[in-house]
């Protein structure tokens, strides 16, 4: 079981309120990702759930019980830190066994559980090593191993992949997703990387300045962002925003159109401009087009290789079905 409810919680550091009253419900077995720019309060929110920070007001419920005043050790949650936070003076075996030792399990039982976890995480050959002798990916696995042995009600991940190189990051992302499918335990995952959020989450919580901007499935956020912030944050490359005459045509203060929803042509189209930079990835081509009448270049994503070069005159046409309209508050218009 791992259902977590946040009820009107707030957090202030001195006079500064970093989390204004916030409500959130996380269901048992869900993979929830907190995403937002740095300083948006996502890590603070995670630490409030963990109990590593005291909440200023409000209530945290874990599995229906009030956990607001419960110390972190007694909340039944496990956490994986950005720096892994392994115990450098202990072997991998002792690191993974530490929570079991604290729980007072006997030696034989500890060994069984550690070996089982090590098997799942491919760490069997490294059990007698110290963390200092492991690679980044292996350390990450030890941190996860230490979290899974105690069979927590929920896992908390604080930007666990940000210290890994790009290739390893993709691997670990898959491993964590697989782990979630196997264990079916609630996971709360903090990241600033919207790709991680989109690929792993059942539910994404987009935060900005301590405020929840939107909660929803990855595709809900992609298709119907509630406001300009979410629209700009979710999706890669970023959504293009246009104002003035461009948006007036659609009866909105701002319109947004994703790069993959614009078609490009040499001969005809709705907007005309010149190619500034073109990035050829093989599978896709990204064009940054300087459109007449717009300050920022418009990003266009075309599938496959397209033959446009710097300086080419091009014409762009948005897919009218895929245009997002926002009012002057930045909120989505129906």
């Amino acid at each position, binding site marked *: 079981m791992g259902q977590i409810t946040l009820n009107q919680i707030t957090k202030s550091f001195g006079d500064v309120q970093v989390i204004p009253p916030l409500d959130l419900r996380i269901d048992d077995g869900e993979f929830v990702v907190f995403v937002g720019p740095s300083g948006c309060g996502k890590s603070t929110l995670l630490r409030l759930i*963990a109990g*590593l920070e005291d909440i200023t007001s409000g209530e945290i419920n874990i599995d229906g019980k009030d956990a607001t005043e419960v*110390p*972190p*050790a*007694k909340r039944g*949650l*496990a*956490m994986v*830190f*950005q*720096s892994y*936070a*392994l*115990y*450098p*003076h202990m072997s991998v075996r002792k690191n993974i066994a*530490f*929570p079991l030792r*604290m*729980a007072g399990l006997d030696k034989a039982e500890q060994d069984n559980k550690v070996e089982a976890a090590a098997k799942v995480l491919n760490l069997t050959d490294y059990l007698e090593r110290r963390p200092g002798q492991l690679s980044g990916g292996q350390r990450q696995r030890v941190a996860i191993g*230490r979290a899974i042995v*105690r069979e927590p009600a929920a896992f908390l991940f604080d930007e666990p992949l940000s210290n890994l190189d790009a290739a390893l990051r993709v691997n670990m992302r898959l491993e964590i997703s697989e782990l979630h499918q196997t264990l079916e335990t609630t996971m709360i995952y903090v990241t600033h990387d919207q790709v991680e959020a989109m690929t792993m989450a059942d539910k994404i919580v987009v935060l900005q300045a301590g405020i929840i901007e939107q909660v929803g499935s990855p595709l809900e956020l992609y298709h119907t962002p509630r406001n300009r912030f979410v629209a700009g944050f979710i999706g890669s490359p970023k959504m293009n925003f246009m104002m003035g005459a461009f948006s007036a045509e659609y009866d909105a203060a701002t319109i947004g159109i994703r790069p993959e929803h614009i078609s490009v042509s040499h001969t005809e189209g709705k907007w005309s401009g010149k190619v500034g930079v073109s990035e050829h990835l093989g599978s896709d081509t990204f064009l940054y087009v300087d459109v007449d009448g717009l300050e920022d270049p418009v990003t266009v994503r075309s599938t496959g290789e397209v033959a446009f070069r710097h300086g080419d005159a091009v014409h762009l046409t948005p897919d009218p079905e895929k245009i997002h309209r926002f009012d002057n508050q930045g909120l989505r218009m129906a």
Partner: protein
Amino acid sequence: MARAVTTRRKTINTVAAWAIGLLIFFPILWTILTSFKTEAQAINDPPLFLFFDWTLENYAVVQERSDYMRFLWNSVIIAGGSTVLGLIVAVPAAWSMAFVPSKRTKDILMWMLSTKMLPAVGVLYPIYLLFIEMGLLDTRIGLTIVLMLINLPIIVWMLYTYFKEIPGEILEAARMDGATLKEEILYILTPMAIPGIASTLLLNVILAWNEAFWTLNLTAAKAAPLTAFIASYSSPEGLFYAKLSAASTMAIAPILILGWFSQKQLVRGLTFGAVK
């Protein structure tokens, strides 16, 4: 940019380093040499350096007249006891200052250090009276407590510096793993800080061993450590330099040997944190 250091420059530096080192060590060397002279040779003018009749007579006389082992034992108990006691008090204190600092933490640290700026004689009278009142005069327990208290600021400061180097996330991880505060300090913080704790321990044993103000003023016979042993050969005896030197050599020998064997640890401890 590589710095070109010529051989000549290296030689000069080496000679200068040795000269300064010998200059600092000279008084100790002279004491040791004097302890092997006769009283007459000790005050010979011009002073005799290496060419005199080496004798162990002073050591025999000193051992005969006073019970060296009793003083040594008192020193061991007082220096060791005050250090261990200090660590027991200082580890939790440094933990709270390093990992849950408040707005006043820096001020408290400064205030603690400022107590070291007060001349000890300034509080001799009240402490002496307290000792009489509590029956602690000339007891090992009384001296242990006083030396623990006077060295406590240094112990806390040193431990605080070492603890600051330990990432807080590791302690938080222990908390998430179900460790109580006691377990967190015992199983995670202390083992990780062992190098720092070891050098703090060594430095404080040395400080307590050499402490001469309180040990002389608060003891008479029963609890007197080696500092009192040396003192008993100075003023009342007049100019018995050779015996005084023998007593001094016997008193500093244990700590000198300890320092020699642990110098690597000591230097590492004292420079820890300066270069990561």
